[in-house]
C-alpha cells in the first residue's frame, strides 16, 4: 500500500496554507541541472546543487527548525524568478532572503555580493575592500565557497585578481554557464 500522489500533495498544500512549515523545499529543474531550493516564511534560505535531500534536510532544520517539509508552494516565488533568470528575462532578483544562522562577517559580505550587477564581475579582494577588510580576500573566498544561496547571491560573478575564474562550489562549468548567460566572456 502506498500514499497516493494526490493525498500526499493535499497534505503538503494544507501544511503550507496553515503556516505549519518552518522550511519548505523542492527540487527544481534548471539549465545547470537540478537545484535544491528551500524557503522559510522569512524568505529564500538555500539553493544547492547537491539535490539529495538526505544531505540537505538536517542542515535546513538547523537553520529554521524541525518542521522541514517538501512543499512546492513554499518555493513558488523562487521557482518563478529562477525560471525568468535562466530564460534571460530577469536581471535582478526580488526575493526576500533568510540569512539566519550565518556569522556577521558572512552576512556583510553577502550583502555586498548582492550588489554586484548582472553581467559584471568583481574580485575577491575588491569585495573584501567593500566590507572594510581589504586584506580579507581569502576569507571572502571562503564565504563565496560556502554561499548558501548561489545564483541569487551571485558568487559566480566573483573572480580572481588576474581574471581567472578560480573556483565555484557548484563546479567551474556551472560558473562559466552562468557568466555566459549574463553575457560575460
Amino acid at each position: 500500500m502506498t500514499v497516493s500522489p494526490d493525498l500526499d500533495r493535499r497534505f503538503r498544500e494544507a501544511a503550507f496554507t496553515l503556516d505549519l512549515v518552518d522550511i519548505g523545499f523542492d527540487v527544481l529543474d534548471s539549465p545547470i541541472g537540478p537545484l535544491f531550493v528551500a524557503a522559510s516564511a522569512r524568505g529564500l534560505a538555500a539553493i544547492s546543487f547537491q539535490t539529495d535531500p538526505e544531505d540537505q534536510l538536517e542542515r535546513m532544520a538547523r537553520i529554521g527548525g524541525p518542521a522541514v517539509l517538501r512543499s512546492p508552494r513554499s518555493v513558488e516565488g523562487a521557482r518563478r524568478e529562477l525560471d525568468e533568470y535562466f530564460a534571460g528575462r530577469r536581471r535582478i532578483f526580488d526575493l526576500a532572503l533568510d540569512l539566519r544562522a550565518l556569522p556577521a562577517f558572512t552576512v556583510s559580505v553577502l550583502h555586498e555580493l548582492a550588489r554586484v550587477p548582472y553581467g559584471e564581475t568583481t574580485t575577491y579582494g575588491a569585495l573584501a575592500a567593500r566590507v572594510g577588510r581589504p586584506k580579507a580576500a581569502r576569507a571572502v573566498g571562503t564565504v563565496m565557497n560556502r554561499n548558501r544561496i548561489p545564483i541569487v547571491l551571485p558568487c559566480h560573478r566573483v573572480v580572481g585578481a588576474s581574471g581567472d575564474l578560480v573556483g565555484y562550489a557548484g563546479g567551474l562549468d556551472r560558473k562559466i554557464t552562468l557568466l555566459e548567460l549574463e553575457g560575460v566572456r
Partner: protein
Amino acid sequence: MMHAVAIPPFEHFYEQHRVEVLRLLRRRLGAERADDAFQETFLRALRAYRRLEHGEHLRAWVLTIAQNVALDALRRATPTAELVESGAEDSRPAYEELAALTDGLPPKERAAVVLRYGYDLSYDQIAAALGSSPNAARQAASTGVRRLRRSVSS
C-alpha cells in the same frame, strides 16, 4: 551516557510513518474516510512538532494521534458509538507495554497514561496526540492513574 534522540526533519518522519498511519486509518475508517483522517493526523503532528523535546517513540506518538483522529471521526459519524470498545481493538502499536494494565480505562485517559508513563512523552506531545490542550492531557493522565489505583485496590 544517555543522549536524547535527535528530532528528525519532519519530512523524514512523514516518509517513515505515512504508510503505516494510512493502513491503520483505513482499517478503522474505510478507504474513503481514511484520506481526510490521514491529513488531519499529520497536520496535528506537524502542529506539535516544533515543541517536541526529543525524537524518541515518534512511531507510538503518531499512531496514537491517528487512533484519536479515527476516534473523533467515528464519534462524529455515530454519536452513540461506544468509545471504550472502539479504543481497545486496534491500539496495539502505541499501547503494547501498558496494554493489560490500562485496558479498562476510557481511550483518552488510557492514551495519556501510556504516553506519559510508558513512553515518557511531554504533555505537549500527548496533547497533540489527543487533539487537546497540554492541561487537558495532564488531567487525563492523572485521572487515569487515579482510576487505575482505585481499580487495583478494589
